[in-house]
């Protein structure tokens, strides 16, 4: 029987709440960025809204799981993005390119269909249930302890990978020749082509890179969150919200939006705000509580809706997103 010393009821110390919530929010935000960076890259460079993007995330997790259970966890992290990237290249070369001339609607429908196919394929090979993809035991320790709460090292690892991803992508696009060519191919494909650059090849590479990033995100995050056939569906919607809020195609925008959504969701959980509480400032609190319904709905019970609320507001105020170019 365990008996803990009885700590007197500690009602949310403001400092503790602030720090813990911020930490949780930032890490979750970085995870969102990890998944959405590839999507925003593909959209920004190619104009393709890739509905199958979250499926790449799922595939990455399953490939990493397969390798981690047969060979080694770290090899899984390395191989998963490569295989998913190759799959992305294949899809771009043999599927997307064929429908490209028919316009964006066809590309969108194609990727939409692919998402379903991947989901069913995963179910076919790995079954309907979550698989046991876990980090190796030596990574399962507390990074540090804050206010008596262990902070898992792996969460920090997720954050670290995301930051590394952002820096790599950012430097690649803004500081290298390859990035210059990619941006040229996106802005003025005809001129880039006449200057001797192979534009279709560039697009293929971009799509592959985007897919590989999603694959890496899956390999890293899948070991922390459950790896199951629904993971694409679960994260897919929120990733689109990130990209829309950040501004379609803007890498920095994605980062800012991811962090915002992470922080908002995290803080919303801790705050028992309701309309009734708001109305009690003007003396209508008791009335609102007696009416109930929407008035007593606390913010924490709708924390999952916060990202969508944020998207609505951003779309109303800045239709092109926080850092979108076409404002």
């Amino acid at each position, binding site marked *: 029987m365990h008996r803990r010393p009885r700590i007197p009821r500690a009602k949310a110390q403001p400092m503790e709440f602030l720090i813990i919530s911020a930490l949780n*929010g930032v890490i979750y935000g970085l995870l969102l960025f990890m998944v959405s960076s590839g999507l925003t890259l593909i959209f920004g460079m190619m104009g393709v809204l890739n509905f199958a993007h979250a499926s790449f995330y799922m595939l990455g997790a399953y490939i990493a799981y397969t390798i981690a259970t047969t060979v080694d966890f770290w090899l899984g992290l390395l191989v998963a993005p490569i295989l998913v990237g190759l799959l992305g290249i294949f899809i771009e070369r043999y599927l997307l390119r064929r429908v490209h001339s028919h316009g964006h609607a066809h590309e969108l429908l194609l990727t939409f269909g692919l998402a379903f196919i991947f989901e069913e394929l995963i179910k076919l090979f790995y079954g309907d249930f979550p698989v046991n993809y876990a980090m190796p035991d030596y990574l399962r320790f507390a990074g540090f302890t804050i206010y008596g*709460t262990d902070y898992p090292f792996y969460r920090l690892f997720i954050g670290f990978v995301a930051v590394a991803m952002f820096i790599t992508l950012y430097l690649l696009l803004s500081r290298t020749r390859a990035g210059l060519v990619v941006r040229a191919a996106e802005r003025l494909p005809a001129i880039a082509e006449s200057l001797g650059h192979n534009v279709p090849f560039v697009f293929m590479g971009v799509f592959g890179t985007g897919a590989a990033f999603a694959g890496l995100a899956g390999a890293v995050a899948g070991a922390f969150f*459950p790896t199951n056939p629904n993971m694409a569906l679960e994260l897919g919607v929120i990733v689109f919200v990130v990209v829309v809020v950040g501004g379609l195609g803007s890498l920095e925008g994605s980062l800012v939006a991811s962090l915002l959504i992470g922080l908002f969701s995290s803080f919303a*959980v801790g705050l028992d705000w309701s309309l009734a509480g708001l109305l009690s400032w003007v003396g209508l609190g008791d009335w609102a509580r007696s009416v109930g319904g929407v008035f007593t709905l606390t913010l924490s019970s*709708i924390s999952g809706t916060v990202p969508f609320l944020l998207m609505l507001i951003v779309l109303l105020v800045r239709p092109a997103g926080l850092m979108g170019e076409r404002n």
Partner: protein
Amino acid sequence: MRGKSLGLAMGVAMALGWPAGAGHAEALKIGIIESLSGAQTSTGRLFATAAQYVVNDINKNGGFNGAPIEIIEYDNAGGTTGAADKFKQAVADGVHVVLQGASSAIAGQVTEDVRKHNIRNPGNEVMFINLGAEALELTGDKCHFYHFRFTTTAPMRVNALVNAMKKAGDLGKRVYAINQNYSWGRDMEDATKAAAKTGGYEVVETVLHEVNKIQDFAPFVAKIKTANPDTVITGNWSNDLLLLMKATGDAGLKVRFATTFLDQVGNIANGGQTVLGHYIAHPYNIEADDKGFPEAYKAATGHLPVYIEPQTVNAIRTLGKALKGVDFKGGEVSVTEIAKALEKASIETAIGPVSVRAEDHQAILPVVVSKVVENPKYPVDGTKLGFGVVETIPGPKAIYPVQGSCKMDRPS
């Protein structure tokens, strides 16, 4: 041409008053309207497998009404719209009994559709056997004569958990309730508050959150930590349970979880050591059963009975028992007669008897309180862990009073 002449021949045969052979008897048709694609496939498929298992058994022993029972699968695609569509289809196919279990929201749709259909088509009723939808309103506000529920509800699970954990000294004085924000989660929250007095605890805080939308439970864990509970009672299932327990374990927070769906396939493997020592109340635990059923089930389906499969098997077995009590002599099947027989039917299982309460058609069934332990007789998910039996509560003790909101119109 050929079909026409065959029909003609049969018509002549009937007109001449030839005795109807076994092939002409009206077969009982069972329709499973389940989530056979989409996010809840894993659970939907289990309901279908378990139902099929018992029906095969009945058919081996001569079927019903002089014909084998037919079982037809309908995919509701995990939504109420799909379920409503497929219900119409099932009626058109001449289905007598509808089965469904995954999601109380879908069960709410199906039970309403069945009720309306029966009002509009007297003499041609359909009955609904609810295999796993636990929302109280299904046997409360929405109860009707043609709906039968063969699973537990929130008060049955929570009361069992609270009593068993209190006896074991694992409950503590401070209880936290975290649940999903829909009918089931609200039922759980209410049941947790209602059991506070008998359990001798204080509900320190309650939280409702959205269903399977939250990826990161760390903020909720921070919230739980501030409230400093001994035990967290939760009705969460699927990701919402797994993520919550993992996040709690990762944060090094020492609380005891009292759960209701920890036995969902894959949970133990995914949770790993984190889930060790936590509790669950469920309608079945293989450790409490004798060898007979689990081995027979494995021989037929390829796996030991898991999650909601045993309760489904018991439900269809009870239906089979009811069918033995009615005889239509190869003629037309009367669903009303079957429903009346089902009200009185009961079966024996190794864990305890299962019967139906006539007032609201809630099944009276045993509830098992278990704890995740190392090296049990039947480890699950390919791990060393499994569910050790803490206490088996017999049906009559586990059941809750009939809800006053249930006003059932009984056929004469």
